[in-house]
């Protein structure tokens, strides 16, 4: 079941990682372009998100309409998004049209049209996106939580603010993109059915030119407040909570993921059992491990009606702190089989696999094989997880709430 991974490295430093999936008819690929929110000056905040939309509005040889019509005609499902570390362009399609799709997305990345009138539309779209967040408090609370938790500039929100976006000019956005379009820090990942020698030839002809060589200096500073409440006349209080833990490159990474799973990963997890099953406080409650390259946390979301909100938070905080007292063998076994199953099931989908290849290479500088991950999961013991939690207690909380009423954060905050 282990698939073969091919690496192609060009003279300009571009890395292409491809994995053969013999039993699928699709192919998926991702371009991770190093133009992330963390690399952009505060006065241009939001530029990454605008650029990720602008890129799809035409290339030097194709107008915006011609480009989209080509994507649609070839049955290419495509998207562009921005995060802290990169702009991600991704595509998935039936493998028969792969060569045309790769060429098209290469044009999008390397020779964007960057028209002024299209810029105005991208900017307007990005502003709308920020405005509409107010009608989606559940998404908004987790976004604000991240901004408050990670140190600057890793906390930079790729969407920016309405004020910075209003001031942003097309020439500034285009400059930011060109300056950061460094192929030696760009990662292309591919998963599905392909012919390796044809792929090598095509990669060589599409990407071997010279591009910028720019390594931005990123100096992390302090993070935000411990508790913030934003008033919203909705029906629920939306609670986001996060506590720091080790990042993916740390040897204790798998212990941290196991802890997050035991705490709030499934329906038999502690949060689901204590908050929903025993007390009926929430419909939606759970926790998840999340990581950047150098920082990570275990994050929790819960949505509840205002009268139950304080009790909900208190129970959650109690479960986070209480896990240091011990875990059972059965809890760990359930977490292990859950993690292994998710791993194998996500390897059946070409788009999930492509995205994992890209993020592994970005975060670790290498690809973890499925066997390696499985073996690391299998080797976890109750002792390793408990030792880890006792040495890295889950009790330093950053909390953000949105809703009709404030709650009181835990006293050590």
């Amino acid at each position, binding site marked *: 079941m282990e698939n073969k991974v091919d690496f192609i490295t060009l003279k300009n430093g571009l890395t292409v990682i491809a994995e053969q999936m013999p039993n*699928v008819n699709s192919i998926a690929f991702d371009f991770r372009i190093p133009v992330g929110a963390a690399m952009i000056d505060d006065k241009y905040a939001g530029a990454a998100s605008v650029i990720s939309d602008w890129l799809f509005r035409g290339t030097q040889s194709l107008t915006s309409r011609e480009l989209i019509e080509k994507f649609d005609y070839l049955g290419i499902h495509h998207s562009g998004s921005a995060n802290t570390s990169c702009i991600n362009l991704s595509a998935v399609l039936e493998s028969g049209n792969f060569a045309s799709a790769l060429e098209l997305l290469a044009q999008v990345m390397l020779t964007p049209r960057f028209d002024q009138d299209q810029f105005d539309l991208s900017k307007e*779209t990005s502003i*709308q996106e920020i*405005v509409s967040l107010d009608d989606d408090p559940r998404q908004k609370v987790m976004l604000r939580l991240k901004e408050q938790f990670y140190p600057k500039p890793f906390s930079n929100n790729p969407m920016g603010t309405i004020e910075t976006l209003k001031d942003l000019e097309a020439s500034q956005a285009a400059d930011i993109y060109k300056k950061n379009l460094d192929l030696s820090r760009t990662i292309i990942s591919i998963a599905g059915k392909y012919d390796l020698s044809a792929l090598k030839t095509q990669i060589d002809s599409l990407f071997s030119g010279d591009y910028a060589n720019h390594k931005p200096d990123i100096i992390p500073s302090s993070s935000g407040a411990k508790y913030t409440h934003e008033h919203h006349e909705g029906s629920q209080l939306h609670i986001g909570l996060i506590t720091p833990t080790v990042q993916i490159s740390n040897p204790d990474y798998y212990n941290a993921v196991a802890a997050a799973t035991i705490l709030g990963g499934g329906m038999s997890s502690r949060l689901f059992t204590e908050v929903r*099953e025993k007390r*009926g406080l929430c*419909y939606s409650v759970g926790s998840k491990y999340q990581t950047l390259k150098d920082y990570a946390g275990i994050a929790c979301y819960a949505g*509840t009606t205002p009268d139950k909100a304080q009790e909900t938070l208190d129970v959650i905080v109690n479960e986070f702190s209480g896990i240091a007292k011990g875990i059972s063998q059965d809890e760990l076994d*359930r977490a292990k089989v859950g993690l292994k199953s998710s791993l194998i*099931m996500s390897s059946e989908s070409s788009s999930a696999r492509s995205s994992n290849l890209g993020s592994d290479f970005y975060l670790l500088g290498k690809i973890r094989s499925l066997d390696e991950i499985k073996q690391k999961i299998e080797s976890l013991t109750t002792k390793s997880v408990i030792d880890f939690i006792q040495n890295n207690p889950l009790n330093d909380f950053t909390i953000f709430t949105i809703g009709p009423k404030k709650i009181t954060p835990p006293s050590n905050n």
Partner: protein
Amino acid sequence: MEFKHKTLNNGLTIIAEKNKYAQSAAVGFFVKTGSRDENTAISGVSHFLEHMMFKGTDKLSCFDVNETFDRTGAKFNAFTSEENTVYYAAVLPEYLEQVTDLWAQLMRPALRDDDFTMEKNVIKEEIAMYKDMPQFEVLDHARNLHFGQHPCGFSVLGTNQSIDDLTAEQMRTYFKSRYAPNNITVALSGNFDFDKITSLIESKASLWTTQPAPRKLEYFAGTFKREKIHKANLVCEHICLVSPSVSMQDKDRYAASLLANIVGDDSGSRFFWELVDSALAEEASMQCDAMDGVGTNFTYIQTSPEKAEQVTEIVDKIFTKISIEGITENELVAAKNKMLSAITIKNEVPMGRLVELGINWVYLQRYVDIDETVRQIKSVTVKQVNDLIAKYKLTDYTSVVLTPKE
């Protein structure tokens, strides 16, 4: 792909599509019941019952159930719609028997009073959660307004009042009449041993007794009413338009989906160029919702209150233009290609395949393989779509607007 099926003496049907290359397997219990099979006295019972099915049996507590599921590493859940309640799990092949055994046990639940009382809180939290999701709320209102007194307009969640009023006894009565084996289809996809799984299901289900589980089927085109609802806490305007379309059993089902794709797909559609690409709307989409004996097209638009009037005018123009001029050959080819590649991608994963397999059987009572679906999509002509536009007018719609404007 290899297809097998078996119907037990009591009417329970097992259908299975095997893919020996798959790394996982998926199982689903498709119960043909939903909010349209309710009445005002028991509004919300199908969905509430779906929650209660996880609360265990005479032998299993809810904690036992959750732990047993998680011990199989399953990706599992359930959903309730107007016409189906579906319980599913995707697992590694070695855990399929264990998870299927559990689901089969849960199909005969304890429905205890104290679990019922506790779960009312969770249901009401879920209702509150959707109140904070205007994109969902507007669709729910619009469906309700469009269908008027027709059962397809009944709310899946119910209201705080209807949930407060509901008794455990009413739920037990509903359960007995709807969860009869002849009203349940078990679907399997991915990698599994058919004979083993079938005899396992048979050993659990053979004593379930057959019961008539009828459904009132009546065609209804819609009320075509219009409503504007003021909600002070919103910033955007959320618009939902509903017009009649084909049913699941209609031969034009794929033509109707292609039409919705041409009008309102998220890439390259008429809505995309006129509203999304031009930054007039944050979102503008159309979807065909084919149901049992009826069908609708749902248009959802999110825009700013200042642009709402202009956006509504453009939508009306798009509908009028397509009604007069029809669609073009190029539009149809693009829509087909997008849909075909989406089918390939979705069906590669057993869990993606499961729902389509089960739903097709529930509505058509026969197996539809992927090749047949592909052939049917490819065979749709411009004339067929244009005839459909003439028959089900997009310009006649029910509309609900949620707006912050006074």
